[in-house]
């Protein structure tokens, strides 16, 4: 993902791939998730026994599988950007479709997890752990949905050959957002599902 305006310059590119605006948006999102993670960690410090006990009721296998899906989805989108940069729009569109499938898989797995918890009568007021678990993962869930909307738009435009070398801004911006959704889950999974 080369910055197209700086390809002739030696040394590092001045700006990250994609639109600068998306990077400010990503930083704002990371800040929000960072605050959420810290709140969870310090909330746990005041209720260690409760958090350790309740963590055992989570489906760690589903969490790990969802990590695989998000990372694989991220890889698919990176491969899509690379293909488009080599003027291979059709290949790029296929990689984007694979990324969308991974995101959809994540939503389905998470949906089953939520259904199991709600079916067991668990809700936001069950206890502090579940208040954090449900709000934190749902906040992330919404970001996966937004990321998928962006990917569908990118897929549609890539199929039409809208992007290519010299016109990477749109696809690089959307891809960066999708990678952010993956990046956040990479911290969330060990913190909420494993660390005790």
């Amino acid at each position, binding site marked *: 993902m080369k910055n197209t305006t700086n390809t002739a310059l030696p040394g590092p590119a001045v700006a990250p791939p994609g639109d600068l605006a998306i990077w400010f948006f990503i930083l704002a999102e990371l800040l929000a998730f960072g605050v959420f993670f810290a709140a969870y960690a310090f909330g746990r410090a005041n209720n260690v026994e409760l958090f350790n006990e309740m963590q055992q009721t989570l489906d760690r296998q589903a969490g790990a599988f969802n990590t695989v899906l998000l*990372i694989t989805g991220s890889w698919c989108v990176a491969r899509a950007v690379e293909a488009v940069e080599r003027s291979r729009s059709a290949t790029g569109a296929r990689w984007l479709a694979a990324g969308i499938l991974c995101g959809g898989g994540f939503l389905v797995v998470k949906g089953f997890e939520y259904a199991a918890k709600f079916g067991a009568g668990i809700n936001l007021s069950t206890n502090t752990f579940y208040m954090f678990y449900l709000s934190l993962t749902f906040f992330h869930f919404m970001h996966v949905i937004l990321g998928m909307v962006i990917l569908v738009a990118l897929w549609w435009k890539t199929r039409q050959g809208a992007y290519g070398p010299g016109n990477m801004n749109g696809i690089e911006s959307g891809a960066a957002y999708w990678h952010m959704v993956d990046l956040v889950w990479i911290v969330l999974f060990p913190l909420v599902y494993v660390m005790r």
Partner: protein
Amino acid sequence: MMNTRQLNFVWVVLMLATLATYAIGEVGEQLGIVGPLAMAALLVISFVKGRLVALDFMGLRGVKFFWRGLLIGWLLLVSALIAIAYWIALR
């Protein structure tokens, strides 16, 4: 800057790292990876993973340090806060 082999390699490393995180949760106790050791191992693994996503998938590897620094700095800050909170919980 971005090439197929590098992206595939990063994906394999990320998969192995995810397996390691899952294994700490499943068989950490049998292996003696518990408590602060497990916490440290999990944070190191997630830092390595997050760094690869930022550098290779997001494409920041060849970009000015400022941008890499912001994302890696976020990872370090979040990891530090989690470690501090974990340490407080031990007391």
